């Protein structure tokens, strides 16, 4: 008789307390030692809930009802406490900060085995092994706060490894990390996967990072039912259309190949990585010329199906901004954090942003992106006469003057909410402008309609869904008529469906003439949406220019960033020199029938 599988799920349904329907529903699968399983599914399908059931947190620690049975190394999870199950399953969660409980790296790794009453000498042996594997052994005496985001998440992995459990469950371990951090974490995971010592269950949206290390893919549909369970490469290649229809995100290279297939260029099998895409393209004897920048075709990695743009915005957008003229001007801008003696985080930046631009500020963590954006928007004070937004110094003018020119959206929309209902939240910005109650009502109604919040006007802002909160925060930033919108990391920690919804909305605003500034580290999003890129490194602005020029030049690498997946594929093409400049989905050729 073969040994019992490490994980055995039999008709598992989980219903959260207060929820009407169960997600996931009726899921059955087994995982054996050595397997690396990726769980995919659209947001809200219950992937994270499912991971919580794998070590008994559902139903023991989370108020949710579990039907069916989950067996961990033969133990029924509903009959054994989390403490017992933790000897078989170790977890890594999304937010590295919410997993750290002690004062030093070494204590952190020892925490779990100490709780499990492992002997002190073995605790230290395990800690040493785990920390050496993730490359943090030399930093064991440090406070975890001194590590980067990627470092803290590697620490979380080391903590899980020190539990010596044969199953490792990771729930979106890189969603809160910058590209360097994502690379660090996947380097560790790749090593773990190659050892074949653990069974790894991974929930991840960023397939570009994960695709080359998973063996098997399990796909849930929107209602939480298991629809596909099979070998990773075959599933992603042969059922790609099905996955896209389900709302599952595929690697950018695969999406690009599907776009090309629709245009009559068939790459078979579908490539999954930039290297495979490059190889498949080089195998083609000839390729049609890429579309020029001025073509009206639009397509992004988030929504690859080509559409036609409505044409560039022209003319005036209200009384203050005129398309093409300078909206924001910064001269020799330097910013210190934490008062006069604080460290300089932005140094000597000269920047002009023209009205109607969609500018992305990119750079690694700590490059000063957010500080620059906050100084431009007057959120933190800049030295006198260094920043000009449509004729005023944003840090020194009255709040109402600033609100009429530039709106700022923080990373977490909840931070900005100040009123008890959605409608009052919007009206607040008008009251600030001295608009009377009666005049405010139609403007609030218009804004509610614009962002699809009419039915929620009396709802408390904190009770909205994530996407609704984000739309409301953008609405409050714009209601005073600001022609410039600044957003700090708007896609951070969100899944791709929400990121897509938000960025499409920003593009709509930009089409209508709003100048948009975003800070982000997702370069494929930048490539697809931004008209201009500003690259920052160590507080300095390395350069700024049109997206295509910046991505084709050396700045991205100088700033310690990696080119987006599509650019990585096209840069190395041996045969098709004219394709080297392709960095965005919209440059890929379309079929002769044209875009829809």
């Amino acid at each position, binding site marked *: 008789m073969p040994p019992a599988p490490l994980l055995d799920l039999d008709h598992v349904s989980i219903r959260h307390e207060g929820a009407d329907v169960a997600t996931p529903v009726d899921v059955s699968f087994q995982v054996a030692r050595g397997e690396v399983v990726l769980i995919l599914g659209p947001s809200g399908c219950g992937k994270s809930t499912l991971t919580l059931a794998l070590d008994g947190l559902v139903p*023991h620690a989370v108020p949710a009802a579990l039907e069916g049975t989950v067996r961990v190394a033969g133990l029924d999870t509903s009959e054994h406490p*989390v403490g017992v199950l933790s000897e078989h399953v170790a977890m890594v969660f999304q937010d590295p900060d919410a997993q750290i*409980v*002690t*004062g030093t790296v070494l204590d952190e790794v020892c925490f779990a085995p100490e709780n499990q*009453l492992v002997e002190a000498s073995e605790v230290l042996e395990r800690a040493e092994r785990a920390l050496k594997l993730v490359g943090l052994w030399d930093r064991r005496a440090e406070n975890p706060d001194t590590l980067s985001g990627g470092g803290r998440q590697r620490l979380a992995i080391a903590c899980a490894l020190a539990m010596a459990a044969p199953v490792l469950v990771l729930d979106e371990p890189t969603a809160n990390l910058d590209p360097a951090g994502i690379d660090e974490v996947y380097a560790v995971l790749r090593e773990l996967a190659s050892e074949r010592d653990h069974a790894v269950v991974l929930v991840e949206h960023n397939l570009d990072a994960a695709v080359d290390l998973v063996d098997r893919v399990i796909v849930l549909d929107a209602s939480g039912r298991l629809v596909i369970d099979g070998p990773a490469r075959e599933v992603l290649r042969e059922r790609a259309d099905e996955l896209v229809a389900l709302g599952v995100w595929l690697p950018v290279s695969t999406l690009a190949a599907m776009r090309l297939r629709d245009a009559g260029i068939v790459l078979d099998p579908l490539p999954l990585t930039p290297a495979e895409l490059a190889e498949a393209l080089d195998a083609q004897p000839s390729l049609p010329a890429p579309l020029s920048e001025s073509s009206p075709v639009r397509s992004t990695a988030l929504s690859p199906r080509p559409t036609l743009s409505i044409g560039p915005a022209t003319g005036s957008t209200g009384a203050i901004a005129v398309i093409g003229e300078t909206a924001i001007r910064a001269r020799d801008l330097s910013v210190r954090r934490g008062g006069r003696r604080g460290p300089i985080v932005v140094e000597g930046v000269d920047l002009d942003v023209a009205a109607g631009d969609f500018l992305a500020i990119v750079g690694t963590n700590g490059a000063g992106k957010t500080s620059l954006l*906050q100084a431009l928007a007057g959120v933190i004070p800049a030295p006198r006469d260094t920043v000009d937004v449509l004729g005023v110094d944003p840090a020194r003018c009255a709040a109402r003057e600033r609100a009429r020119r530039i709106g700022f959206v923080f990373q977490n929309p909840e*931070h*900005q909410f100040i009123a008890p209902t959605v409608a009052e939240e919007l009206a607040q910005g008008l009251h600030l402008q001295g608009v009377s109650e009666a005049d405010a009502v139609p403007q609030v109604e218009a804004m509610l309609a614009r962002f699809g919040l009419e039915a929620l006007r009396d709802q408390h802002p904190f009770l909205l869904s994530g996407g609704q909160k984000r739309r409301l925060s953008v609405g409050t930033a714009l209601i005073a008529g600001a022609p410039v919108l600044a957003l700090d990391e708007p896609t951070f920690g969100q899944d791709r469906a929400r990121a897509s919804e938000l960025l499409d909305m920003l593009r709509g605003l930009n089409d209508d003439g709003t100048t948009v500034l975003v800070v982000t580290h997702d370069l494929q999003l930048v490539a697809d949406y931004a008209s201009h890129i500003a690259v920052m490194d160590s507080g300095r602005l390395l350069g700024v220019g049109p997206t295509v020029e910046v991505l084709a030049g050396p700045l991205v690498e100088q700033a310690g960033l990696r080119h987006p997946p599509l650019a990585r594929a096209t840069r190395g093409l041996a045969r098709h020199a004219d394709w080297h400049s392709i960095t965005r989905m919209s440059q890929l050729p379309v079929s002769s029938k044209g875009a829809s």
Partner: protein
Amino acid sequence: MSAAGEGGAVTPEVSATPADGSGAHAASAALDPFAEHRTQRPSRFLYALNPLAKLAAPVPVMVIVMFSRGIALPLAFIVFAAAVLLIGARLSGRAIAALLLGIPIAALVLGVTFGVWIDPSSVAGHPAASVTLISIGDWDFTLAAYLVGFATGLRILAILLLSLIAGVTSTGTEFVRSMVQNLRVPYRLGYTALAALRFVPRFGHELEIIRAAHRVRGTDVGRGPVAAVRRAVGYIVPLLASAIRHAERVALAMDARAFGAHRTRTERHFSPWRVRDTVFVACFLAVSIVIAVLTWGR
């Protein structure tokens, strides 16, 4: 307080001391930050003591200081506590300067700030009540009032210095460890409190962002206490929402790492109550009694 032998019941065998390990394990134990703390600074005796001893000895003295009157007793204990700190702890140059210069200056200034609140009639019988230092209108600041304020300031400084004996020479983790091992405080309580300490800087940072976000929305228009209170109330909802969410996540992560699964947990570091701890407490209290008897009521 439990003896060293009873502490051994918490962990079956302690092999994490550098002496009895070998190979890689010995190396890792020697580089352990907490082991380092004790082995590398043997010359400074406070580090070698159990944190509870450093707390148990000064606490009764603090009570005596609290109920004392006059200048001599708190002054004597300030000198005593400062001497223990200078001899027993490794202080930075700045800390020594603060101790030797900052404390006298603080005492003189506190004399004024407390003294002005003294009711003149309550010190009317004092011989120094006739010496007026400053007079504003019909209000006189007398030497007597200053001396009463000065004594109050000295008492506060004495209590502060006595608490520093434990404060500057042991970490939060060491305290929790001794409370769990020697006082039998449940470890679930102690280590949860330690984990909660990590929340403080996080919430401070979060509050800073929320304030900036509310400023952007234009809520900083009003001035005065009413507007300030209204603003503060506005910060509570987002701060609580994020605090609860964060606490839930931390709790899940701790559960997943078997926290609270067993009645005890392995201790890699031993925090025994040794003879030297008893000696320290006895000597400290003996000296304190002598000082108190000599200076009481002067």
